[in-house]
């Protein structure tokens, strides 16, 4: 019984991270049909923003020293600013490009950010300790849970609800939803393309920062390669959820988290190192079964 509770919390907290990362990608795709491969690097960038730039193996906290009440808004702003800057420098000049060209340039941008981090911080993963107290286990329903897992799950819920409210209740949200459906028509009604796109990038970057905070606390490691791993999973969640569908991205993020934890728990010991291979095979099967996404009605017209 207690191990079932444990599995549930593991799946929900991992899925929460994936869901938030996938949301960041789906937001941008919805508004401008851009598959933003640089998103994972926004996350890595935010993690490294916590520590003092150096190639030493042990990280010295920089922003990470600030009290949470300051740190959280500052890091969210940094993530948002990084994403907005990348739009301003790269994607703004590609408004008329094909989705494929934009996708490849985002891949290049991600590569640039990753190598910039590598040049400044070195390639070795660094141990960091952000809010270590959150990893102390607490007992709940017979399972030992790190407080952080609960916080991750709650944070995900709060973020998803806040985003839903923002999209539903604010002027920017209305314009973003209209633009996601028909950008030209929205512009003909006076909706400013730059405002909507900048807004989407700012939100997406802030989501990346939230993921960065959680991952930094949970793993205690800053690794230049962390962006690539989470980006791949988040992408897959976005595609499985139905590209551009925000609820789909969240649902698929949780689904992949759950599948990943279940495979980890129930695969025979000798094939367990190959867990990700099983996971990605499942993904391809999912795509084949429902190319338009798991959580999109099959009548919906494909977006691409």
């Amino acid at each position, binding site marked *: 019984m207690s191990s079932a509770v444990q599995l549930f919390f593991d799946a929900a907290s991992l899925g929460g991270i994936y869901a938030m990362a996938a949301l960041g990608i789906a937001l941008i795709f919805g508004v401008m049909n851009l598959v933003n491969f640089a998103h994972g690097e926004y996350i890595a960038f935010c993690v490294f923003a916590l520590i003092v730039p150096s190639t030493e193996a042990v990280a010295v906290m920089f922003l990470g020293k600030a009290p949470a009440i300051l740190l959280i808004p500052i890091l969210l702003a940094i993530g948002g600013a990084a994403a907005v800057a990348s739009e301003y420098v790269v994607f703004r000049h590609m408004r008329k*490009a094909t989705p494929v060209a934009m996708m490849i340039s985002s891949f290049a941008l991600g590569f640039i950010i990753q190598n*910039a981090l590598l040049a400044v911080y070195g390639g070795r993963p660094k141990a960091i300790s952000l809010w270590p107290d959150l990893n102390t286990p607490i007992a709940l329903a017979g399972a030992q849970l790190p407080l952080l897992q609960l916080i991750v799950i709650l944070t995900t819920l709060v973020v998803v609800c806040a985003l839903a409210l923002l999209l539903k209740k604010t002027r920017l949200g209305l314009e973003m939803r209209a633009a996601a459906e028909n950008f030209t028509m929205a512009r003909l009604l006076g909706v400013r393309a730059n405002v909507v796109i900048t807004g989407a990038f700012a939100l997406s970057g802030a989501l990346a920062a939230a993921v960065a905070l959680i991952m930094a606390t949970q793993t205690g490691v800053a690794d230049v390669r962390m962006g690539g791993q989470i980006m791949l999973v988040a992408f897959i969640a976005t595609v499985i959820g139905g590209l551009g569908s925000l609820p789909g991205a969240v649902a698929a993020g949780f689904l992949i988290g759950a599948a990943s934890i279940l495979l980890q728990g129930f695969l025979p010991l000798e094939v367990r190192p190959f867990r990700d291979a099983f996971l990605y*095979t499942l993904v391809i099967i999912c*795509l084949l079964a429902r190319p338009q996404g798991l959580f999109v009605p099959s009548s919906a017209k494909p977006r691409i």
Partner: protein
Amino acid sequence: MMGKHAQNKALAYSTPLVLIAILALFAGLVTLTGDKALARMAAETLIRVVLVVGLWIFVGNSGIVSFGHAGYMAIGAYCSAWLTLKPQMKSLFLPDLPPWLAQAEWPVLPAAIASGLLAALIALISGAAILRLSGIAASIATFAFLAIVNTVYSNWEGVTGATSSVVGLARYVDQWVALGWAAAAILAANLYANSASGLALRATREDEVAASASGINMYRHRLLSLVISGFFTGVSGALLGHSIGVLNPDSFYLGITFISLAMLVVGGIGSLSGAVVGVLGLSLLIETLVRLEHGVSIGATSVTLPSGAQEILIGIVMILVLILRPSGLMAGKDLQLPRLGKTLQQKQTTTN
């Protein structure tokens, strides 16, 4: 007198000759300098030609961006290692190989061909599933495929050596061997592009709906191009292994995916010449940057680029090309005999 159509067709077949001549000239010039480092650079460049031309056979004709080709490369590279390494080494480092493979000691050329064939077979199997998808979903699925290959090869301790490198590969690939394979890849790519299947596939790239309405079986043509593409990509992996002598799963992951796509995009996805020009252009840039990273003295001052500058600059070049010249340096045009030296071709596009 030849009809205009026949003339165009003949011109289309002159493209590979022009490209191969350029590459041969490049290899020859480098050999003449007698510089060992330059020769190694030339071999690496020509191996990249095999890789990028292989990639182009699929991406250029189908219009689907593949992030999975580094996977076929890894498959080819390890296959050649299994077939050519000394049995004693294999029993030591790769103890779980099946007995026939552990005893195998093939000559290098059949091993390279077998590596290509294995990659082509995996391309057939993976493509049979992935190519049922279209557009961005297909691209993401190729990414998933790459992750699968990387996970398997990074963890299959007794067969691939997992993350510890496989060493001791015969380093037989010099610029001439690589040139031979590059020529073969270019010829095959040109033959395929001008075949009925290649032409039909490019029609689907322009307009999926219209092409399928006209009865083109997109899936079959895509699969065929992926299999041919997989073969040469696999061979390029084998060549790379036998050029540097060491294999590691992570040398066939995101880094090489990025570089090969960058070369294809910078040169121009639309034409075979674009693929070759992209490799030559970016390889030249990489070589310059690598030298700058080691430090170059110009007069009294010495210039040293920080490490990582190479990748960053290539990324910047790629983005600039995408912004300023979205269809690449060659913009879908091909180098052909009578026009070379004048403008690089105005109207007779063979692949567009």
